[in-house]
């Protein structure tokens, strides 16, 4: 409870800090929304041309895209600077967090919080549009709504786990940008499309090594198409929790190896 209060306070002060630079705040929110809108527009153009990707319709692909991006938006909003740990490792700025009687991860999560309004609005818009289309055509019922909510939250936890594990590797190798490109950016870009378009080895990679497919594709198989069973959603949540636990464990070991910098 106390931790939650401190988290709220720290997030609020972080947002106030960013509000000091109003132009930057609004401009970056607008830009990130614009970029992800362009991304989806490209997907839509492809689908419009061919009608479907490997049997996945436009509304279904929109659903995959929206669930993934909403999950990511939640992760990046609540754990913002975990993704930028490299900056703290190189500059030695983690020192300041280690001096305080709060968990270091909590401190890091509350620095430079960005409210990703643009991405949130855009993600929600696509999700609502997709769900509306799918429900109207009778493919899914309203029972899909709570399941979708679970899928989004567990996807956020999964991406947080992957992000945290990747960041923690930085305690050993310091520079992690390239690694993040693979585990976070490339994997997520890949998961925007239905998994079936990829060769088998790539599917294995996205299911087993960097299990990003559990953030949208796997739960969607059941939610949208009734394949497998409800356990697909539960398994996705379980894998998210495992990834989070692994990330936390790696983080704890890494922190004890923190080297700081000279001064």
């Amino acid at each position, binding site marked *: 409870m*106390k931790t939650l*209060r*401190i988290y709220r*306070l*720290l997030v609020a*002060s972080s947002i*106030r*800090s*960013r509000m*000091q*630079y109003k132009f930057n705040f609004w401009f970056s929110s607008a830009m990130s929304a614009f970029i992800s809108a362009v991304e989806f527009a490209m997907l839509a153009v492809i689908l419009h041309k061919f009608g479907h990707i490997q049997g996945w319709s436009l509304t279904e692909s929109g659903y995959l895209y929206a669930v993934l991006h909403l999950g990511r938006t939640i992760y990046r909003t609540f754990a913002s600077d975990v993704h930028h740990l490299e900056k703290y490792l190189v500059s030695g*700025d*983690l*020192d*300041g967090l*280690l*001096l*305080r*009687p*709060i*968990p270091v991860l909590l401190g890091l999560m509350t620095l430079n919080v960005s409210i990703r309004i643009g991405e949130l609005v855009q993600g929600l818009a696509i999700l609502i549009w997709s769900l509306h289309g799918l429900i109207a055509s009778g493919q899914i019922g309203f029972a899909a709504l709570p399941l979708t909510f679970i899928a989004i939250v567990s996807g956020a936890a999964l991406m947080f786990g992957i992000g945290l594990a990747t960041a923690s590797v930085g305690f050993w190798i310091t520079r992690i940008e390239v690694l993040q490109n693979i585990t976070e950016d490339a994997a997520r870009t890949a998961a925007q499309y239905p998994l079936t378009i990829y060769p088998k080895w790539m599917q294995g990679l996205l299911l087993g090594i960097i299990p990003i497919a559990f953030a949208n594709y796997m739960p969607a198989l059941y939610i949208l198409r009734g394949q497998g069973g409800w356990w697909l959603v539960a398994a996705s949540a379980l894998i998210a929790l495992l990834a989070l636990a692994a990330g936390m464990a790696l983080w704890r070991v890494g922190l*004890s*190896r*923190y*080297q*700081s910098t*000279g*001064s």
Partner: protein
Amino acid sequence: MITVSNLTKQFRQTVPKEGRFSGIRTLLSRDYRVKYAVSDISFTIPEGEFVGYIGPNGAGKSTTIKMLAGILHPTSGTVQIDGLSPHRHRRAVARKLGVLFGQRTQLWWDLPTADSFDILAAMYGLEPQRKRERIGMLAELLELDPFMATPVRKLSLGQRMRADIAAALLHDPDILFFDEPTIGLDVTAKKNIREFLRQINRELGKTILLTTHDMDDIEQLCTRVIVINEGALSFDGTIPELRRRIGLPTLMSVTYRGEVIVDSGVFDALSIKEIDGRTVIATCNRAKMSAMEALRLLETLGEIEDIHMEEPNFEDIVHHIY
């Protein structure tokens, strides 16, 4: 109470290769050079002591402080702060410590100064009443009121340092680590900060470990000096002891009532540097001869009118040990 025993910290560095394709060969190399930033340091600091921790750049001062504060984990050896290990019980120890890094602010850069205190108070779980008392007291002692509403990034260095000191003291810790609190400040600001540090040590009984390159800080504040050089402890004792050990000469300038004739053969530990009419300038090695003995010797030369003694400059002493 701080107990440090056999504290060691080693860093591994890749050995850079030379010659052809040196970049790639360095990348593939598995050769490491182990560098001891701190090696086998032991000391104990009882409550209420004001200790100066000095050494040249790169001697391992900051590394030691970071291990004491729980930022770095020691390679071997132990640190205990009131019986607790800072890296195993980091959060409990953090409550007992106030830490200031003069080169790097701990305040929230873009927010008004007062906001930083609010955030810190919440982190340390201060009750609202207690928080008001602490901030009121510190604001008065450190004269923070004129810039409480100013964002930290717009403060002058002197103001920022005072605000940082207040931030380190907000939760009323008993042990304080100050890493270069007077760096870059003007004479008046330095004097004020020294006065404040003296006050919290003498009157409130805070234990203070101070690292600095400003020898006036050490000379005016510390009851004890610990010198570290190349990671190893090279001296631990009082300032007079340090003076004695180095044995730098005391300068004595004696003016006589009449002309003096000097027979230099008389004195061994006392050497005559200069004779200018009625004034004789002599240096005396205090490790071998007390000031009184030296005076008695000088008295045999004639009737003394005036005498002036100059102790060796502390900076020279330190220069000598490094």
